């Protein structure tokens, strides 16, 4: 049955995504499915049944006239797309997850780099030791960034060239994505919660005035803050990047053909009411980040500039519902 489905999807993959074409595909699928089921009920083997169904399918040329797709069927369009095989996709998924992990680890190291400095200062070592720790963390992060970026570079064609994947591959990736979804949701949630509550342990320690192994409470509070934020951001960056990997693959097909329908019907891309709205939304978070950094660095009121984030989140929700096309 799977073989028949793949056959039909492949035959239709490059046809335009119109109601007539989709209806034709659906009707033909009904007939093929009925025939297959009956052959199996008659005691034929799976191979025989698939062979008979495909042999008796006919030729799309015959229906091209009714569908107004004559020039497409004869193959004048869409031949420049690069076919990405199942093996390539599996390899990409593997390497890309690896990349996501290294990048997230790099971010983690960058954020937690002051920890070493704080601790060595608290232990009243020379400030050189603290600087050494800081540099070591950042240097490791840079190595991770550069190395993994170069490694992932060879997959750039997925984003730069027109590519296409077949139905079986789409199914496989979609399946993987579904399976990853609970992990994604968990990592995202815990990550965000960690960032939000990052100041809580610091506040508690400060309040109770507990001393850890002779370290100053202020130092300890700082260390915990960095650990929470770094861990939270690590989780967010990792899960977001891995999820993105699946989306990249699933978006490869030409959306104006039947093959573009494999997934887009389940995960429609956001459409905005006007190009202006779309361009505003595309730079929204970058702008917010800019405002946050400028405001914070100018005033050094880091303890309350963070209020920008929840406010920006609410505004983003409002804008999205106002600009989104149904």
């Amino acid at each position, binding site marked *: 049955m799977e073989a028949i489905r793949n056959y039909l999807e492949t035959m239709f993959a490059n046809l335009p995504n119109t109601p007539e074409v989709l209806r034709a595909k659906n009707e*033909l699928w*009904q*007939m093929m499915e*009925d025939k297959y089921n*009956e052959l199996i009920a008659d005691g034929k083997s799976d191979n025989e049944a698939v062979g008979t169904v495909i042999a008796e*399918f006919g030729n799309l040329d015959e229906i091209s006239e009714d569908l107004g797709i004559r020039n497409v069927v004869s193959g004048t369009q869409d031949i420049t797309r690069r076919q990405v095989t199942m093996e390539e996709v599996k390899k990409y998924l593997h390497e890309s997850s690896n990349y996501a992990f290294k990048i997230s680890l790099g971010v983690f190291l960058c954020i937690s780099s002051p920890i070493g400095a704080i601790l060595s200062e608290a232990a009243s070592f020379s400030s050189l030791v603290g600087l050494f720790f800081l540099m070591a963390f950042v240097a490791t992060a840079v190595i991770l960034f550069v190395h993994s970026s170069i490694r992932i570079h060879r997959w750039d064609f997925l984003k730069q060239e027109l590519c296409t994947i077949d139905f079986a591959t789409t199914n496989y990736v979609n399946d993987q994505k579904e399976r990853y979804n609970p992990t994604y949701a968990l990592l995202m949630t815990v990550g965000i919660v960690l960032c939000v509550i990052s100041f809580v342990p610091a506040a508690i320690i400060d309040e109770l005035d507990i001393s850890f192994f002779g370290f100053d409470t202020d130092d300890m509070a700082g260390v915990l803050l960095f650990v929470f934020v770094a861990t939270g951001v690590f989780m967010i960056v990792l899960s977001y990047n891995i999820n993105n990997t699946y989306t990249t693959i699933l978006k490869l097909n030409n959306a104006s053909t039947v093959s573009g329908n494999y997934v887009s019907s389940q995960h429609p891309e956001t459409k905005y009411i006007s190009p202006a709205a779309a361009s505003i939304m595309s730079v929204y978070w970058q702008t917010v980040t800019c405002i946050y950094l400028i405001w914070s660095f100018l005033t050094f009121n880091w303890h309350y500039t963070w209020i920008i984030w929840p406010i920006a989140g609410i505004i983003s929700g409002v804008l999205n519902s106002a600009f989104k096309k149904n």
Partner: protein
Amino acid sequence: MNSISSDVIRGYNDTIILFLLLQHPSYGYEISKQIKTLTEEKYIIKETTLYSAFTRMEKNGYIESFSSNKDGSGKRRTYYRITEAGRQYYKDKCAEWNLTKEVIENFILKEDNYGSNQELS
């Protein structure tokens, strides 16, 4: 056994389908199965041929489609039923075939006249 030439039969796919729809509304696979049985597997209609005939005849108003799951399998299928225009068209096609047969018959040698017992199909 010679296989049937699709060029020859093409003009009569409509007749075949309309004949089956005259009895009761039906769906794609049932029609293709009936054609296979009635012709003792001498003619097996391709899925694309069948679908193309459906869309063409629907456009011309000879048949109508509707969705139903009345065969009890719980699966929704597209059924087709014949219209009044379809019945008229079927009659015309039958008349056309009788004429065609009459004309062509004049040019077909009788079996014993060409010296072999080759089967005509």
